[in-house]
C-alpha cells in the first residue's frame, strides 16, 4: 500500500496536550514536497501567469501545461464550454514545444521553492521519448508527468491511456529515457483503473496521477452543432469529483507506488477526501481559472485540519475507515 512509504517520514512524538505542529510535507518518487498541493497541468500555464496573484513559493509543485517535442497549434475555436458544475475543454494541447519551454519558461520556474513538474505529451512512443530527451537538458525540472490520457487529440494520448499494453510500452520507453522521476497520468475513461495503474507500475512508473478529464460532449440545440469544434471534449471541475475520488481510491488499492489525486478539487475539504482515500498529494485544476488562490486556501485548510485533529499528513493519508458506523463494512 502506498501509505507505507508516507509513514516512513519521521514523525515527531506527538501525544498529550502540548504544542503541536503538523508536518504536511511529503515525499513522492524520491522528491520532497513542502506540502501535498500541486497545480494541475493545463490549468496553471507556466506558473509565471499567476505570479502577481498568489505567492508561488508556497505551492508544493507546479505542473506545467503539456509539452510536446515540437510546438503544437491546438484545435479551432470554440475550445471550451461551461456545463453544470464543470467545464468541457478541447484545447488540443497547444504548446510552445520542449525547446522554447527550456529557454523561455523554465528559468523562471527554477527560481521558485515550488517543485517543477513537466507534463509530457506525444502522438507516438517516439514522440514521448524525443520530448523527454530534449527536456532532460533542463536544470530545475523535478519530475515528468506523462500525459497518456488526453482525450482531445485523435491519436496519441487517449489511445495509450485506454490500452494497458500501450500504457506499458510508452511508460517503459519513457522511463528508460527519463533523467528525472516519472509520474504517469492516467485516464478515467476506462473500465478498470487497477489494470492501468498496475501496467504503469510494472513498466517502471515512480508514481501515478489521476484523473485526467472525462470525455464529454455538449450540443447547441438551436444550431444542432457541437458546442466544441472538436465534437468531444474533456470534462473537469466539481462535477467529476465523486467519480475521480473513487478512481483514485481504487488506484491506491491496486499499486504500491504513490498516487496523486486530481479532479474537481476546490477546497481543503475536497483535498482531504482524496488524502484520506489514499492519495499522497493532490492537484488543483479548473478551480485555478475562477479562483486563483484555491491552492493556497487548500494548503492552509489541510494544515488547520491536521492541527485540529492532531495528525501529521502522513497519518492522514489512506486513513479511511470502513463501515459508516464503525461497525465494519456491512
Amino acid at each position, binding site marked *: 500500500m502506498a501509505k507505507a512509504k508516507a509513514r516512513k517520514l519521521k514523525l515527531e512524538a506527538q501525544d498529550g496536550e502540548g504544542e503541536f505542529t503538523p508536518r504536511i510535507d511529503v515525499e513522492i518518487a524520491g522528491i520532497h514536497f513542502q506540502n501535498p498541493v500541486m497545480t494541475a497541468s*493545463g*490549468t*496553471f*500555464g507556466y506558473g509565471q*501567469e*499567476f505570479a*502577481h*496573484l498568489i505567492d508561488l513559493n508556497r505551492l508544493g509543485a507546479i505542473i506545467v*501545461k503539456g509539452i510536446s517535442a515540437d*510546438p*503544437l*497549434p*491546438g484545435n*479551432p*475555436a*470554440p*475550445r*471550451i*464550454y*461551461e456545463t*453544470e*458544475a*464543470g*467545464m468541457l*475543454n478541447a*484545447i488540443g494541447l*497547444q*504548446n*510552445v*514545444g520542449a525547446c522554447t519551454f527550456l529557454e523561455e519558461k523554465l528559468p523562471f520556474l527554477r527560481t521558485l521553492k515550488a517543485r517543477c513538474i513537466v507534463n509530457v505529451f506525444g502522438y507516438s512512443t517516439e514522440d514521448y521519448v524525443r520530448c523527454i530527451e530534449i527536456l532532460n537538458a533542463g536544470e530545475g525540472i523535478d519530475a515528468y508527468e506523462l500525459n497518456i490520457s488526453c482525450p482531445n487529440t485523435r491519436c496519441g494520448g487517449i489511445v495509450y491511456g485506454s490500452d494497458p499494453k500501450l500504457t506499458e510500452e510508452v511508460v517503459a520507453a519513457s522511463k528508460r529515457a527519463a533523467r528525472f522521476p516519472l509520474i504517469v497520468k492516467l485516464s478515467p475513461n476506462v473500465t478498470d483503473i487497477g489494470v492501468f495503474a498496475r501496467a504503469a507500475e510494472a513498466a517502471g512508473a515512480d508514481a501515478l496521477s489521476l484523473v485526467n478529464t472525462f470525455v464529454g460532449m455538449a450540443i447547441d440545440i438551436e444550431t444542432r452543432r457541437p458546442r466544441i469544434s472538436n465534437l468531444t471534449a474533456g470534462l473537469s*471541475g*466539481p462535477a467529476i469529483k465523486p467519480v475521480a475520488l473513487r478512481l483514485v481510491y481504487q488506484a491506491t488499492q491496486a499499486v504500491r507506488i504513490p498516487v496523486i489525486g486530481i479532479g474537481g478539487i*476546490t477546497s481543503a475539504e475536497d483535498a482531504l477526501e482524496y488524502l484520506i482515500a489514499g492519495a499522497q498529494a493532490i492537484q488543483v485544476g*479548473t478551480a*485555478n*481559472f*475562477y*479562483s*486563483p*488562490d484555491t491552492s493556497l486556501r487548500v494548503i492552509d485548510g489541510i494544515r488547520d485540519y491536521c492541527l485540529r485533529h492532531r495528525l501529521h499528513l502522513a497519518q492522514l493519508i489512506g486513513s479511511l475507515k470502513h463501515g459508516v458506523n464503525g461497525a465494519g463494512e456491512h
Partner: protein
Amino acid sequence: MYDEMAQVVENRPLAGRHFLLSLYSPKQARAVRPGQFAMIRLPGRSDVILRRPMSIYDVRSRDLKGGYGLERHGQRPAVLQVLYKVVGRGTRLMAELTPGDRLAVLAPLGHGFFPEEYLAQARDASEVLLVAGGIGIAALLMPARDLARQKIPQRLFFGGRSRHDLVGLSDFKPLVEAITLATEDGSRGYRGYVTAPLAQYLEQRCERRFLILACGPMAMLQVTAGLAERYNHPCLVSMENRMGCALGVCLGCSIRVQGEGHAAYERVCTEGPVFWSNHIVWDP
C-alpha cells in the same frame, strides 16, 4: 490586473434586458485603459463556476459623477462600470444584484484599444468610424472619449436587433459628430445590419482615409473587416470568445490568426481582445 471583491454600487436596468452595473473598486478603476475588460464571478455558486468576461464601459468617481477622464476634473476613478445584456444563466444572476452585494472581479484585463497604437492612423484619417453591434457598444465608450479628447472627428455606426438594443446613445452623443443607427426589425434607423449603411458610407467615400474601431458579434466583425480590406482602411476589432480564465493559461479563448504552427493561434484574453482586423484569419 487585480483580483478583488468589489461591491455593487448600482445595478441600473435599461431598455431591452440591459443593465448598467457600477462596482466600487478603486484600485482596478484607476488601472483601466480603453478597450479592456473585467472577469466577473458570482461567488458561492457552483452552478456558474467560470467568470464572465465584460468590457469595461466606463470608470467613474464614487458618486458615479463624471466619467473616464475625470482625473482632469480633480477626481480619481473609483467605480468600474459594466454595460451588460441578460442572455444566459450568469447574466440572469447578475441582473438580481443589488447595492451592497459583492462580486469577485478580475480587472483590468487584455490588450484593448490603446491610443499609442492607433493614434497615428487616427490622425491620418479624415474620421474615425466606431462600429458597434449590440452589446459591443460597451467596448467603445472609453476609446471614443480618448479620440474626442484628441479632437479627432468620429462617427458611430450602431446596430442591434431592435431599438431596445441601442443603449448608451446619450453617452456617445457629446463625443461623436454623427450617429447612424440600424435595427434588424427596423424599429429604429436603417432596417437591417449596421454593416449595410457602413458599406454605403465607405463606398461613397472611397477616396477618404478612415480608421475603423469595431466591436460586436463575430459575423458583424467579419463583414466590417472585409469592408476595411476592400477599401483599404486600417481596422481594429475587439473579438469575443468563450473564456475559461482570462489569465492566459487555459488557452480556451485562442483564435486563428496569421501565422503558422504554434503561432497560428492567439489568445483573445491576452493578445486581444483588440486585434488589427487583417491579423485575424476569418472563417471562409
